[in-house]
């Protein structure tokens, strides 16, 4: 260890890695993982989300899952919850759509209207 700057750099990296263990207000992406969701391809959607977040190095985003919400025909369903804003629910989110939602909604705050099935 040569300097405090070097320590600070390691600290920042480590914090990014363990961020999800902290109780903070982060953007949340919730993927419907009921049997219906999984059958409709939610696993692939989730994998695409993980991949896109890693590619963009988005450390402030928490990814969780939920069960069936009763809209099976709209699965895979993905909710985006930004701090202080109402929940936006997207339907029939394929991996490709998920990547676009992250680029547009999560990063640039522009809701992708045509795929939204509910808000609030």
């Amino acid at each position, binding site marked *: *260890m*040569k*300097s*405090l700057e070097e*320590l600070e750099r*390691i*600290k920042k*990296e*480590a*914090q*990014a*890695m*363990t961020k*999800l*263990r902290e*109780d903070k207000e982060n953007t949340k992406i*919730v*993927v419907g*993982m*009921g049997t219906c969701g*999984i059958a409709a391809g939610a*696993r692939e959607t*989730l*994998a695409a989300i*993980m991949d896109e*977040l*890693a590619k963009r*190095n988005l450390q402030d985003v*928490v*990814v*969780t*899952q*939920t*069960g069936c919400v009763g809209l099976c025909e709209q699965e895979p369903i993905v909710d985006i919850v930004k701090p202080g804003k109402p929940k936006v629910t997207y339907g029939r989110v394929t991996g490709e759509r998920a990547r676009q939602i992250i680029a547009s909604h999560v990063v640039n705050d522009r809701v992708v209207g045509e795929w939204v099935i509910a808000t609030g």
Partner: protein
Amino acid sequence: MEFYRSHVLVCGGTPCVLGGCKAVRDALIGEIHRQGLSREIKVVETGCLGPCDLGPVIVVYPEGTFYGPVKVEDVPLIVEEHLLKGRVVDRLIARERPAEKEIVKYEAPSYLGPQKRIVLRNCGLIDPESVEEYIGRDGYAALGRCLSQMKPGEVIDLVKRSGLVGRGGAAFPTGLKWEFTAKADADQKYILCNADEGEPGTFKDRLILEGDPHSIIEGMAIAGYAVGADKGFVYIRGEYVISIERMQKAIDQARRLGLLGENIFGSGFGFDIEIRKGAGAYVCGEETALIESIEGGRGEPRIKPPYPGTHGLWGKPTVVNNVETLANIPPIILNGPEWFRGFGTERCPGTKVFTLTGDINNKGLIEVPMGITLRQVIYEIGGGIPGGREFKMAQTGGTSGGCLPRELLDVPMDYFSLAEAGSALGSGALLIMDDSHCIVDIARCFMKFFRHESCGKCTPCREGTDRLYEIMDMVSSGRGRAQDIDLMTELAQVMQRASLCGLGQAAPVPVLTMLKYFRDEFEAHIADRTCPTGTCGL
């Protein structure tokens, strides 16, 4: 960079290891792999989470869901329901007794209650085998600050002002201890970490070492800088297998990052640490016996003075600090002495780590502000006495600690208040007993332990423990004589005054406190030849 959507923390402290957490961890990894989630979910083995009797416990982040006890058979359900489908498995959520209240989130105030975590700040939250995770939570920042911005004298002054006293049981002011060694003139000085935690029922140092080994390394390096020592030894009980493993890994990682070794932070200061394993003698927890043992001699105490501060390891000035004391150092440096004085009492600032065991609902590892009352610990954190029984006695600090009766439930628990009440806070065990236990029988068991562990070097301890055991054995088997209570008291007082080291001086403490607070039970065994509790077989 690795990116995961969920971390599963598996408690890897010794109590959970005994409960089978390794098998649970392996099952989790296997099942996560089988479900194809290996790239999404990371399994982290961590240090003690606290509620040891609920072990093995696991915490799933980002939700912070606390499961326990988790069996291998439960793993597929947790993985499929929670990790894959996002549905919390209610049935397996850890519940505090007696109210069966769910422990929802590990750090939640509703769970911690009056607890305050300074020493255990990282325990159960980080992977103890990852130096990066320690650094991520301000690790080594205190060492960096000391080496680059403070003079050794300023470090000592800061520790003195914090009011920190040794957590091994003797409560000697840590800053003062460092100052003695700093002022001693010598070509070589040493820092020793006393991790020879031998008190039956005490395992707090073990869990600190297992859960946050880097905090000890950092504390030792800071002590080394303050007093001018470039070498340290951690003396760990040989039975503490996991502590030794994790400490060794931590030392290796610190060396790799240049946090141990030459010219740390480019300051010119160098420090290195080696582990020495104890062979299981209780007396080696006494600092001079510990030093003898490291030197390769027989574990017997030396006559004091001279004290280790000026004449310690190989005759050189040596600081001997307890594990918990050292773990307090980095946060004190970072947050300042006034911050530290904000916790605990005026004379005894800070917190105390206890292992809560015996007849109590929620057993485990806790950290509370000094000066908290026994009543708060037992009823607010411990959840009271199980089975509808009554509290009878609590022993603080392991077998050589004092026994507190119901009348002392509201005495503040700090070193000085308890000493004034004729007891002692001791090291870190808190053994709770309900009204089904016979005091005479317990006293006899304690003395049997000391008789076995007395090293035999000095007469008061060697003979005193033997004779006290004999008398107690007579009393407990209905052959006691009227004069035995006075005889035991006198013998105990002689041992306290004349014994060479802490073992013989502290062994009579439980006896004297029991004779003081539960005299009627001894008298019943002697005069009526009966046991009031009817449990000791008399």
